[in-house]
């Protein structure tokens, strides 16, 4: 829309980590906009973007009617930042329409070091696809405790043994120790109520026994429960308390564990820079005390954080470090997780073939060590990679494998995710009816297990599928269901995204009044939660609708509003 509206030069900075997603955007743009597209890929030899554009303009490769897509800005660091800031006049003079794709970490760099250029550009953030596919899961590691187990049944047996012992135990030190164990075990199976009860119990007893290390572990446990409950801010409070004790008693290993867990909490809050800071602290100690396993976990966590900042090369480097150590210390499960993470990183870089190689390594190990859940997740990831290659038939086969195992180990959530993925694959194949069947299966399970977030994502997917079928009524009905849930669970961001989607849908249906009504609802929330960049999109969308309604006054008003942000 901005591209259409602009009558002089325009620069769009599209913040998007995910390369497959970028490709999809380009495809959509191609379909919707009648412009010529010209792609410039930057690399080590080719870093000066403004000069390059000037050259191409002179040689008539591009003109005012061309949309220039710039990729590979990450290859041109650090010089590119300077080039952009000093030569923004070129962009203006040439009146070009330019789209620059850049990962989050480069966007940071631009905002910081190229402010003149940034003020001139439009920033668009693309976070998630509308259509939800259960993605390649990266494997996070934390020092919850050093509990290893192969399947949930084994852990449940261990819980039984501990609970039996607890019923006989009389000495405080025993009750404390067993409670701590039980806290850790229940945490692993996500039974947070029981877990927190046991951690609190052990904390009280350790206080009585004046056992600092025990207190430290218990508080950390409580923090981790809050982390599991997604109350990250509360988790951080407890984890910082435990960090204080670890420092006080000079427990280096404990200190390192605290940093790791704090890092993970900030990671979950989406504050990846802070997460990196903590993980680096943890890494330093792990190296110092020769804790190889801890060192490897730090590399994994750092890799994941850099992945989220879109710095995949750095992420890959860290995952490779972790892999090296896991091989060295013979941690098979860890090794397999590293392969998954490397696969995920290459997937994000759009190198699906390389991703598949790593994911297959991971699969091999999971089979070898008999980790069924891991195996199932691997099939899902492989399915996603083949999906990326456009090999939907193979993807379907893999998702079916994953589903089979999920059923076998009675992993309801996993099963449901497989249905979603199968639905998405059939959707891509153009078999919308089949896609709808799978989405509905998935929906049924999400409802059954009470996963509200999953449920609402299903509605979104169903909406998209009916839209593709041309059933616009249903296409509107489903996002409305989704909206209801977001309201229920108090997810403001989700709610406003729904309004935006509904606005767009009504716009498509030609019901402009309704479209504006929803956009205004979205506006209210975006203003409330302070998501300025989304607000800008909404204003621009409103302007487009008023243009269709022939209301130039309003068009001007919203254009101005958008400009002001």
């Amino acid at each position: 829309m901005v591209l259409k509206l602009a009558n002089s030069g325009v620069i769009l900075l599209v913040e998007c980590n995910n390369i497959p997603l970028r490709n999809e955007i380009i495809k959509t743009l191609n379909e919707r906009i009648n412009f010529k597209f010209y792609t410039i890929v930057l690399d080590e030899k080719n870093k000066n973007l403004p000069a390059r554009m000037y050259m191409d303009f002179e040689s008539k490769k591009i003109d005012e009617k061309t949309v220039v897509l710039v990729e590979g800005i990450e290859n041109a660091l650090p010089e590119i930042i300077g080039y952009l800031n000093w030569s923004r006049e070129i962009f203006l003079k040439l009146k070009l329409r330019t789209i620059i794709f850049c990962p989050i970490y480069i966007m940071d760099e631009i905002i910081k070091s190229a402010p003149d250029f940034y003020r001139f550009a439009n920033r668009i953030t693309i976070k998630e696809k509308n259509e939800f596919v259960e993605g390649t899961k990266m494997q996070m590691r934390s020092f919850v405790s050093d509990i290893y187990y192969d399947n949930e049944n084994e852990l449940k047996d261990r819980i039984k043994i501990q609970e039996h012992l607890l019923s006989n135990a009389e000495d405080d030190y025993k009750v404390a120790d067993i409670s701590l164990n039980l806290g850790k075990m229940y945490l692993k199976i996500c039974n947070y109520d029981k877990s927190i009860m046991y951690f609190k119990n052990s904390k009280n007893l350790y206080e009585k026994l004046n056992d600092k290390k025990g207190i430290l572990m218990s508080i950390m446990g409580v923090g981790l429960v809050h982390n599991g409950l997604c109350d990250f801010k509360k988790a951080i409070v407890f984890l910082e308390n435990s960090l204080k004790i670890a420092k006080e008693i000079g427990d280096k290993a404990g200190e390192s564990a605290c940093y790791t867990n704090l890092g993970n909490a900030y990671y979950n809050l989406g504050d990846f820079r802070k997460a990196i800071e903590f993980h680096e602290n943890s890494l330093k100690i792990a190296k110092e005390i020769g804790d190889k396993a801890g060192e490897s976990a730090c590399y994994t966590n750092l890799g994941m954080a850099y992945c989220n900042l879109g710095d995949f090369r750095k992420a890959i480097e860290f995952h490779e470090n972790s892999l090296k150590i896991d091989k060295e210390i013979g941690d098979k499960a860890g090794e397999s997780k590293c392969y998954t993470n490397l696969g995920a990183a290459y997937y994000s870089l759009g190198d699906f073939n390389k991703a598949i190689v790593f994911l297959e390594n991971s699969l091999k190990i999971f089979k070898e060590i008999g980790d069924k859940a891991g195996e199932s997740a691997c099939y899902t990831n492989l399915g996603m990679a083949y999906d990326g290659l456009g090999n939907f038939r193979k993807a379907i086969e893999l998702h079916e494998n994953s589903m089979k195992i999920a059923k076998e180990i009675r992993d309801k959530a996993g099963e449901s995710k497989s249905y979603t993925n199968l639905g998405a694959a059939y959707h891509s194949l153009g078999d919308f009816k089949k896609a709808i069947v799978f989405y509905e299966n998935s929906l049924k399970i999400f409802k059954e297990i009470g996963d509200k977030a999953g449920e609402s994502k299903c509605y979104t997917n169903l909406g998209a599928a009916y839209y593709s079928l041309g059933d616009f009524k249903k296409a509107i009905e489903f996002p409305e269901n989704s909206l209801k849930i977001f309201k229920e669970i108090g997810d403001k961001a989700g709610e406003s995204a729904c309004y935006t989607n509904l606005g767009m849908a009504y716009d498509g249906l030609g019901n402009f009044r309704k479209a504006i009504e929803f956009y205004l609802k979205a506006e209210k929330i975006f203003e409330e939660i302070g998501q300025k960049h989304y607000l800008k999109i909404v204003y621009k969308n409103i302007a487009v609708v008023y243009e269709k309604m022939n209301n130039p006054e309003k068009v001007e008003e919203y254009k101005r509003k958008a400009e002001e942000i």
Partner: protein
Amino acid sequence: MKADNISQIYNIFSIQPLVDKEYYTKRQSPVDEIVKRLIVGTTEKPEKFLFTGHRGSGKSTELNILSDEVKKYNKYFVVKFSVSETLSIYDITYIDLLLTIGSEIYKQAFKNDIKISKELCKDLSEWMIKRTKIEITEENVSAGLEAGLNYLLGKLGTKMRVEATTREEIRKELKPRLGDLVEKINTMIYSIEDNSKLMESDKKIIVIIDDLDKLDLKRAEELFYESSNSLTLPNCSIIYTIPLSIVHSNEYTQIKQNFTDAFILPNIRVWKSNGEKDEEERKTLTTILEKRMDLKLISNEAINIAIENSGGNLYHFVYMIRSACINAIMRNRNKIEIEDINSTINNMRNDFDRILRKEHYLILDEIHRTKVAVDGKILLELFHNLSVLEYLNAKRWCDVHPLIVPLLKERMEKQKNSKDTAR
């Protein structure tokens, strides 16, 4: 049995630690205090003690006595073992030690027909098989779960002792799973203590580990400095023997922090720190002789010279009498005379002469003059090879082993002379 002719002396003066009280002589020892702490102690948590003393000072004997004393009170189920029997002594890691503690507890309980719950037994067996890759044969399975686990642990012990590669693999496998290992051990401890046989009298498990002091200095430091935290994780009382040199190392204060307390078995004092004879302590050594042999088989002068040259180290004392009796027999005598002791002393002194270097003598000279030992890497070596002995009154003090004193004098004399000639 007491030796009443000279040929019996050799066997009766065996240099093995005593296992019962037949030849035992009461001496100044921290064992009384340890027993008191364990029995009367109103501790809320299991105790973790360190126990140390010079090599050959009689630690093992004292630990045997301790174990008997503790048993008398019926408050502990005692699991005592020597790492030199259960493990390959030269490269013990904390993983080996924790595994052995767990195994020995189970084996002792099994021997005493104390059973753990079926579920736990199954869990332990499965975990052991998975982590150590040791198979259980059909035959063992049919003997029942408990016997199967006992077999498994026995086999694990043998493998850890003789197969270096298996040892490495198991360590590698368990190192990242320390939490699991400790949980298994503690779960087993609780389960055994829950057994009616122990429960009725509220008996708790105590593990007494002997011979850890036989590790070389570097390994011992690694084990106790880097992993002392892990060694305190099993939730039962444990007494670890450690080399005396650890006590003199820089890291000792930090090591000690992790344990409830540390006890030192002092050498028997032959001299007082002011140079006077310590008659009372010398009497202990005479009593030791008296319990094992008829005193008519040895001359008083021989006794005296043996006592003085032993420096109060029991191993040296017993060894002297033992080889002196061979000397006497070879000379066709039926009584140990001063010359028999002297030739033994010469041999022992030569052994010291072989291991001591120039830089050692300088430090030995200072210690001999000041009776004080200051820190230093060389000093640790000197403690480890018994050149320097530590004694305890109210305050601790040190001296050079009496066998070395003539060597030291000779050296210092030479040095002085060479300096004089140079002048």
